[in-house]
């Protein structure tokens, strides 16, 4: 199986503290499940220097293993817009192919706009955390309607709404008419019929495999695509072709 995992979290935040074992393990476990490349998502820091260092760790991974690690920078929407643009340009020029946004600010917040504009100008997608939760919701956490709001404000920005099972059917309907939004397949456990629902509503071209590793596990998360009631052609799109196109790897 060939697959690109578009949702793998970074666990390296300080250059001098390289987590050798964790990095080796990420590679070996992914490859054991037939995953050829992973998009490493850098996590958030509000302090500019700490954030730059975290992005540098991801850049280092990309340099060390260019055939395996792809990089997504983190940009803090609470930082100065000039710094956001400068950091975004620096990371893209160094080879990063996406931007990560988490729960620092809701997607409706206008302070996200600088990041959305930079993503469009630099032609990289934003992978944005989203979830419809009944419990355990974070204060600024976005749901599908928030992602849709951002996508309408920035129709030239490509957005990957994270956590298909988390946003559920309501989240799919929120974005199904917005051609600049994709969805990744992770989000908790492996509810049947969810991937098929997303494909019926959004089309197989806009659904992308992601695992949410290391909080989740490569193999069972792959199973929700491999075991779904879809054609081989659609599974191939979800497992690697859509990601390769979106990240301009082919």
């Amino acid at each position: 199986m060939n697959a690109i995992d578009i949702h793998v979290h970074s666990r390296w935040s300080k250059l001098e503290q390289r987590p050798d074992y964790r990095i080796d393990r990420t590679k070996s476990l992914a490859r054991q499940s037939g995953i050829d490349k992973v998009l490493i998502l850098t996590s958030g820091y509000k302090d500019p220097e700490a954030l730059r260092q975290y992005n540098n760790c991801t850049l280092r991974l990309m340099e060390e293993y260019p055939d395996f690690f792809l990089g997504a920078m983190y940009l803090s929407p609470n930082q100065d817009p000039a710094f956001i643009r400068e950091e975004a340009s620096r990371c893209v020029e160094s080879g990063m192919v996406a931007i990560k946004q988490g729960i620092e600010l809701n997607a409706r917040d206008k302070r996200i706009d600088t990041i959305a504009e930079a993503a469009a100008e630099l032609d990289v997608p934003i992978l944005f955390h989203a979830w419809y939760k009944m419990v355990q919701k974070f204060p600024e956490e976005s749901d599908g309607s928030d992602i849709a709001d951002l996508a309408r404000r920035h129709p030239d920005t490509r957005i990957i709404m994270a956590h298909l099972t988390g946003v559920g059917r309501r989240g799919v309907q929120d974005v199904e008419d917005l051609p600049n939004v994709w969805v990744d397949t992770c989000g908790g456990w492996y509810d049947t019929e969810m991937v098929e629902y997303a494909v019926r509503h959004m089309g197989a071209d806009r659904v992308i495999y992601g695992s949410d590793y290391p909080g989740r596990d490569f193999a069972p998360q792959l199973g929700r695509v491999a075991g779904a009631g879809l054609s081989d052609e659609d599974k191939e799109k979800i497992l690697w072709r859509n990601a390769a196109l979106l990240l301009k790897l082919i």
Partner: protein
Amino acid sequence: MFDINVGCGIWPFRPTPSGDVASMEALLRAEGITQACAYPLEAYLWPDPQEANELRLPELAESSFFVPSAVLNPTLPGCLKSYEQCRREWEVPMIRLLPGYHLYELDHPGVDALAKKAAQDKVVLGIHLRAEDERMQNPIAMVPFVPLKNAVALAKRHPALQVVVFGVGRPGEAGCLLVEGALRHLAEQPDSRPRTSVPENLWIELSFFEFESSFANAVKVFPVERLLFGTHAPLFYPRCNVLKIRNSEASASAKKAVLVENAMRLLEVSA
């Protein structure tokens, strides 16, 4: 492979595949599963789960693929009568409790009465700690997770009873069984004896257990001879739990024990 966690029937909260016995068997066989222990899905919400047993168990009991399993509500006055009917008519080797959905605690007197009877008959008692992700439940039916420690306490009160817990999700949920070390950074710890002390009559089913390298970590947390493979079909894609174990870097002997041998030993079934 022997799948110890299969629901048969209609799930009320969303569409699920393979709602009848024949199509469920086909779904599981396509994944390489050769036998499965199944219970009626309707039992989650019907006021008397025995009506769900009566609907599904006759067909499950006739199947050579399925081992039938009944769901009972021990707070109902007729629970022990239902139990006897399930034993007499369908020879169930396992009964299951859904305390979160049927609104009782595991120290309810009806639970102990049923447990005592099951122990006498060498019938296994399954306890479903969760069936869904609590974060995305239907808001009109928010069902809390049943703590593992409550099931452990039940197993300790009834040492002659074999108890299976379904739905342990994270290593941290096993904290009540921890005897040494820590469960943080588990992946970085070398293989050694399991970190938990599990009562000899307690078994852990793994369909919800997930973290990086889930199965290899499960073997570090729990004794391998007490782990059970389950798919939680049709709520979960069965492929997910098959790959969770098959793609793991755990030993071939551990995989074989959990995929096949342990459940057959527990339920005393032959291939």
